[in-house]
């Protein structure tokens, strides 16, 4: 079976002044088309390196990254990226910011069609009426919504989200989780989400991958059957609590703070 994203036996080390620093060692990850893979792991374990590999911004020392049955060797216009820092361009309006990728990708929409596409996405995330504003006039959560629109505007195969909600307050973050589900229902995409938030991981992901401490390998994979209309209430069920418990335990193992045994079954 082929997946939309396939990462096979990836190893990578950075050159530093004190010799090579291995960050990834034996990373395995597969995401089906339309899948949402949340990746969690201790700080500095190489999660951002993972996003750069999938985006084709760098190549691994060993192993392979496949997208859509093609090995990733260089950047491809078929990915969309959103970071913790929304990196909107202050000299452009929100609308023009969202349209930016269309100016770059080959065969991207032009002119009126491009503008309509951007307006449609902005309305989808609740930013209608803010098209002509400057990024600095928006709140952090709104900026992140605009950044999400920009990542989606050229209909990428893969959405790479590197802690996009990490700098937001808890309520705004939960709002954006809901928005993600709403957007995905209208604009289906395949996503890799890097996050530190376990609740975020189980709320958004249909697959949660726990990476070990550096050098990171795939330590644990949790599959979550996704219901049709997720609600925040889902986070307060015994089922969710058990998932969080398992993930917390896995993170403790990854941090080297717990012995490598299965978590005790919840009573």
């Amino acid at each position: 079976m082929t997946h939309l994203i396939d990462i096979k036996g990836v190893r990578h080390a950075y050159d530093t002044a004190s010799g090579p620093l291995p960050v990834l060692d034996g990373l395995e990850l597969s995401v089906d088309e339309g899948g949402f893979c949340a990746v969690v792991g201790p700080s500095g374990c190489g999660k951002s390196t993972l996003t750069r590999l999938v985006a084709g911004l760098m190549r691994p020392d060993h192993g392979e990254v496949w997208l859509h049955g093609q090995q990733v060797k260089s950047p491809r216009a078929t990915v969309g990226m959103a970071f913790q820092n929304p990196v909107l361009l202050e000299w452009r309006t929100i609308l023009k910011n969202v349209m930016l990728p269309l100016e770059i990708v080959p065969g991207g929409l032009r002119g009126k069609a491009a503008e309509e596409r951007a307006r449609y996405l902005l309305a989808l995330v609740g930013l209608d009426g803010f098209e002509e504003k400057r990024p600095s006039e928006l709140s952090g959560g709104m900026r992140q919504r605009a950044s999400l629109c920009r990542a989606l505007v050229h209909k990428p195969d893969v959405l790479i989200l590197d802690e996009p909600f990490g700098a937001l307050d808890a309520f705004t973050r939960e709002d954006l989780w809901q928005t993600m589900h709403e957007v995905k229902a209208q604009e289906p995409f395949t996503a890799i989400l890097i996050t530190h938030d376990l609740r975020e991981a189980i709320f958004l992901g249909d697959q949660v991958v726990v990476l070990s401490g550096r050098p990171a390998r795939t330590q644990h994979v949790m599959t979550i059957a996704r219901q049709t209309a997720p609600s925040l209430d889902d986070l307060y069920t015994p089922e969710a609590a058990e998932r969080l418990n398992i993930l917390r335990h896995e993170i403790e193992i990854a941090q080297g703070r717990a012995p490598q045994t299965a978590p005790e079954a919840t009573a």
Partner: protein
Amino acid sequence: MTGTLRKIAVPALAMLIFLALWEALVWINGWPNYKMASPSDLWPAYVRYWELFLVMGWQTLWRTVLGLLLAIVVGVGIGMVMGFSRTMRDALYPLLVGFNAIPKATVVPIVALMFVGAHDFNTVLIAFMISFFPIAVSVSIGLSTLEPEYRDILRALGASQATIFWKIALPKTLPEFFGALKVAVTLAFIGTNLMEIVSPHGRGLGALFDSGKTNSDYPLMFAVLIALAALGILLYYIVVALERVFAGWAERQPG
């Protein structure tokens, strides 16, 4: 008071107060005009030499502007090389700092000897030499401090280096560039006048200043200084206007 009126009235009033204080200072101390000319001494000088002021002022202005344009071209060029390449940055910084640390007054006689008689060229050259440094530094810093995410957003879409430069690096550096240009404008005037005062060709406001000195026409000397200040203010506000057009987005709304 409306916004525009305020913008003109406040600095105009400040200038009037400055002139009044200056006049008072001279009057209270009873200084003769060879010690310090007062504003009321300047007016007769302008009336008497207005033609010279126009001709010499134009000489100074065009050479300064030319030197400044040269400084922009070369400064942006060097800034780009240093902004994009770490190696070039490491290589060029000490050289640039060293070059900038040399007082340009000492360079003037060297240049004057090197290109004897090429007065216009020499003046433009000194104006350029004194003013390109802040431009080069600001552009290099603007480019080298571009957050990697900005680059990645476009690189991940397969954008070329040139596209990244035009779409992101260049506009993002514009506020720093204009900041440096404001400094460079005033520096360029210093450069032009250094050459005009030292060099014996008798052109430019610097030469007019020098002739005031030789003829013991002290009010003329002060009148030249004020004329230079006026030209400096003029060029500065032209840069401010350009900044508003090209980098107006960087100006935050107050409040």
